[in-house]
C-alpha cells in the first residue's frame, strides 16, 4: 500500500524533468496559492454549512425534518465535477437561469462562476455533507445534561453554542473538514472545467501536456507533503484533549419546539444547502438529459455503463478482501509492528488519485519491462495500462473506505464470542467463517457499497491509469464536458448519481433491520 508514496519519494532523487524549471518559475506559485485558497475557503464554507445544518437539525423540531436530514447528505452522491458542470450551465450565456428569468423581463444578472471563487462555492456546496454527517453524529450523542448544566449556569442558547457546543464538537468538525480538504485537493474535473490551476491539474498537465512523468512526480511529492502535514495536524489536535464524555446515564437531546413562523424560517435555512447541493444540479442535469438523450443513448452508452458497474464491483470486492486481510493479519498477530502497519495501509484515502496514479504507473512499467525481458516480448504489458493496475490503484486509494466500516463492525463483536469459540475447541479460521464472518456481513456489505459508489465517481485516477479501450461513466462525462458537449455529460452523470443514491437507501434499510 505504501508503494506509490515510496516510488514518488525514490523518484525525487532521479532529478526533475526539463519543464520543472519552467513550472517553478511560472506556475508553482499559482498552484500553491490556488490550492491554499481553495483549501481555506472551502473549509470555512463547509464548516458554516455543515455545522449549522447539523446543529439545527438535531436540536430543533420543524416540518419535513426527517426527509431533510436525508436530503442534506445527498450532495455526496453527486460527483463534484458534475455539480460544477451543472452550475456552469445554469449561469452560462443562454443558460438555465437566463431562460427562466427572461419571461419575467427582469434584468438578467451576469454571474461568472467559471473562476476560482465559483469553484469554491461549487466544491463547498457539494462537499459540506462530510462536515454535516460528522457533526450530526456527534450532536446526536451529546448529553442533555451537559446543555442543561450550561443553561442552569446562566448562558443563553447562542452563547452556549459558541462557548460550549462548538469547542467540544471540534474533533468532529476537524474530522469532517479533513475529508473535505482531501476531496478538494483530489479534485480534477471541476478545477479543470473552471480553468483553475491546482496541483492536481498540474500533475495532469505535466504528464499529458508535457509528457514528463518526472515533473509530475515532483508536483505529486509537494502535494503529498501538504496532505501529510494535514494528517499530522489532525492527529496532533486529537491527541491534546479528550472530549468524549464517559457519562453513561446520559439523556438524549430533546428537540426544541419553536413557534410556527420560526419553524418555517428554520426549514428554509436548512433546506438551502440541500437545494443548491442536490436538487438544482440534478434538475439541471435532468433538463440536459432530456435535451440530449437521443444522441447519447446509444449501444455504446450501455456498454460503458456496464464496464463502469463491472469495474466498480471488481474494485469493491478487491478492497473488501484486502481490508479483511489487513484487519485480520493484525488481529491474529502478537507483533505490535504489524498492528501499526494496518494504520499505514489505510492512509491511501488521503493521497490524491493523481498522486497514486503517478506512483503506480512508474513501478508497473518497470515490472512489465522486466517481465518482457524474462518471458519474451510477446506477453505485452501485463500491468501498465491494464485493468490490474487500475484495480490495484483503487485498492490503494479506497482501502480505508472498506476498512473503517469492517473494523468498526469487528469492534462491535464482543471478544468473548471469539474466545468462546476457541475454548470450545475451534481454531481461528473456523471461528472466522462460523462466527465473525456471519456477524460482519452487514459491515462487509456496507463497505462494498461505499467503495462501489466511490469508484463509480472516481475521475483523476481512472483517467490516468485506465486501459485505452476501457471507458467508465465518469470518464465519459468528463470527455463530453472537455469537448464542449457538457449537455451530453448529463446522462452519464445522472446514472452515476443513481448508482450512488440507490445503494445508500438499501444500505440504510439493512442497517435499520440489524
Amino acid at each position: 500500500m505504501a508503494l506509490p508514496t515510496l516510488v514518488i519519494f525514490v523518484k525525487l532523487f532521479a532529478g526533475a524533468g526539463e519543464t520543472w524549471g519552467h513550472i517553478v518559475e511560472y506556475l508553482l506559485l499559482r498552484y500553491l496559492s490556488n490550492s491554499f485558497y481553495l483549501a481555506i475557503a472551502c473549509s470555512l464554507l463547509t464548516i458554516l454549512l455543515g455545522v449549522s445544518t447539523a446543529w439545527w437539525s438535531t436540536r430543533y423540531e420543524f416540518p419535513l425534518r426527517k426527509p431533510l436530514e436525508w436530503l442534506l447528505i445527498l450532495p455526496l452522491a453527486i460527483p463534484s465535477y458534475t455539480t460544477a458542470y451543472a452550475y456552469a450551465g445554469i449561469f452560462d450565456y443562454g443558460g438555465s437561469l437566463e431562460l427562466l428569468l427572461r419571461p419575467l423581463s427582469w434584468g438578467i444578472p451576469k454571474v461568472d462562476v467559471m473562476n476560482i471563487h465559483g469553484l469554491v462555492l461549487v466544491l463547498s456546496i457539494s462537499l459540506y455533507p462530510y462536515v454535516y454527517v460528522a457533526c450530526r453524529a456527534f450532536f446526536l450523542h451529546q448529553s442533555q445534561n451537559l446543555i442543561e448544566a450550561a443553561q442552569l449556569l446562566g448562558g443563553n442558547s447562542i452563547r452556549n453554542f459558541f462557548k460550549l457546543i462548538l469547542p467540544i464538537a471540534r474533533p468532529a468538525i476537524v474530522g469532517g473538514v479533513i475529508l473535505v480538504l482531501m476531496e478538494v485537493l483530489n479534485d480534477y474535473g471541476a478545477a479543470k472545467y473552471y480553468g483553475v490551476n491546482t496541483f492536481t491539474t498540474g500533475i495532469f498537465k505535466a504528464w499529458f501536456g508535457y509528457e514528463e512523468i518526472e515533473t509530475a512526480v515532483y508536483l505529486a511529492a509537494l502535494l503529498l507533503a501538504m496532505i501529510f502535514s494535514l494528517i499530522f495536524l489532525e492527529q496532533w489536535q486529537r491527541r491534546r484533549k479528550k472530549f468524549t464524555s464517559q457519562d453513561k446515564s446520559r439523556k438524549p437531546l430533546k428537540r426544541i419546539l419553536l413557534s410556527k413562523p420560526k419553524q418555517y424560517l428554520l426549514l428554509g435555512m436548512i433546506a438551502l444547502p440541500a437545494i443548491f447541493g442536490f436538487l438544482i444540479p440534478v434538475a439541471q442535469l435532468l433538463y440536459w438529459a432530456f435535451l440530449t438523450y437521443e444522441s447519447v443513448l446509444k449501444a455504446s452508452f450501455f456498454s460503458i455503463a456496464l464496464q463502469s458497474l463491472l469495474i466498480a464491483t471488481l474494485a469493491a470486492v478487491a478492497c473488501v478482501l484486502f481490508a479483511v486481510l489487513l484487519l485480520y493479519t493484525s488481529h491474529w498477530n502478537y507483533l505490535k509492528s504489524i498492528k501499526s502497519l494496518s494504520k499505514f495501509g489505510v492512509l491511501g484515502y488521503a493521497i490524491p488519485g493523481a498522486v497514486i496514479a503517478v506512483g503506480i504507473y512508474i513501478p508497473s512499467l518497470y515490472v512489465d519491462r522486466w517481465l518482457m525481458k524474462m518471458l519474451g516480448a510477446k506477453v505485452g504489458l501485463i500491468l501498465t495500462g491494464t485493468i490490474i493496475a487500475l484495480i490495484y490503484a483503487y485498492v490503494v486509494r479506497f482501502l480505508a473506505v472498506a476498512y473503517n466500516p469492517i473494523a468498526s463492525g469487528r469492534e462491535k463483536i464482543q471478544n468473548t464470542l471469539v474466545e468462546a469459540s476457541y475454548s470450545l475447541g475451534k481454531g481461528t479460521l473456523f471461528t472466522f467463517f462460523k462466527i465473525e464472518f456471519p456477524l460482519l456481513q452487514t459491515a462487509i456489505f456496507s463497505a462494498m457499497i461505499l467503495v462501489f459508489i466511490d469508484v463509480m465517481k472516481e475521475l483523476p485516477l481512472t483517467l490516468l491509469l485506465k486501459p485505452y479501450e476501457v471507458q467508465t461513466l465518469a470518464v465519459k462525462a468528463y470527455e463530453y464536458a472537455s469537448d464542449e458537449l457538457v449537455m451530453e455529460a448529463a446522462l452519464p452523470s445522472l446514472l452515476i448519481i443513481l448508482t450512488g443514491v440507490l445503494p445508500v437507501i438499501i444500505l440504510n434499510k439493512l442497517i435499520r433491520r440489524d
Partner: protein
Amino acid sequence: MLLQTQNLSKNFGTVKALDQVSFQLETGKTYSIVGESGSGKTTLARLITGLERPDFGSIHLNGKLIASGSFHLSAEKRAVGLVFQDYALFPHLTVEKNIEYGIAKTKDKKRIVESLLTLVNLEGYGSRYPHELSGGQQQRVALARALAPEPQLLILDEPFSNLDTSLRNYLRTELFNILQQTGVSSIFVTHDTKDALAVSDEILILRNGQLLQQATPEKLYQQPATPYIAQLFDFLVALSPQLVQKFGYSCQPNRKYYLRSRDFKINQDTDYQIATQVKRSVFMGTYYTTYLQIEEEEIMIEHQEELKQTTMNLGWQEADLLIFD
C-alpha cells in the same frame, strides 16, 4: 492430579496481575477462586483456558504441560471449558446450534444436545435464539454449550454477577446440582465469598496477584492465613496490643490481634473482660453498631441486642482470638 501451576506469573505493563502463583487441584472436585477486582482471578482463569499466555511459570493439566513462559498450547486444544461472565452466546445461532458448536463431528450431535437441554431444564428451547431467552436461561445455555465437548475442567467466570439477587440463591443451587450430576471438575471465579462457600470443596483466595490461601471452607473460616481472609467472612475488629493487654491477656511482641465482632460477649462471664463506656449505639435494622470507649481507646462492634445501660462489661473467649504474625 487435575491441574498444577508453578510460579505462574503474568504482567500487564508494569502491573503484576499474577505473581508466582502455585497450587494443585484434584479431579472431580469443585473449586472457587475468590478475589476482589484486580486480584488476578480473571487473569488466572484466562491463563488456564489458554486465552492468555503466562510470562513465566507453568501449568500442567492431567500431568501434561499446557503452558509455560516458552510453550503455549492454544485454547482450542486444551479441553478446558469456560462459561463467560456475559455468556458469549453466538447471537446468530439458535440454542441448539450454540450447544452443538463444540461437539466433535464424529459424535451423535443431536442426542448430546437433547440430553444437555434436559440436563439444564431447557427442553423445547432448542430452536430459540439467545436474545429470546431470559438471563438465567442464557446462562444455562452457556453452561450446556461449555459442557458439550466434555471438557476435563470447566471454569465459570463470575456466574452470578449478572443475575438478580432474589434469583441468586435459587440459581446457585440449581447450577451446583447440574454440575454435580455431570461430575465435571470445575472452578468458580467469583468476588463473592458467599457464592464460593455455597458451592466449593476448596477455596483459593487471591489478592494483588498472590495466592493467600487454599483450603476447605471450614478451614478457611477457622484458620484464616491473613486478616484479609478473615474479614471476607465477618466484620473484624482489630485490637491493638495495648488494648489486648487491658483485657488481661498477655501479648507477644510483633503479633496482630483480631476478634470477630460477634465473638464479643456483653455482660457475660468470659476468659477476658473489661468495663467499657457506651458512647453511641446506632440501630442498623438487623443489628446495632455501637462505639465503645475503653479508657482512651475507642472500638466499634456489631451486636444483636439493644443496650440499655451506659456502662457494660465487654469480654471474649481465648479460643476466639485471631492471632496473625
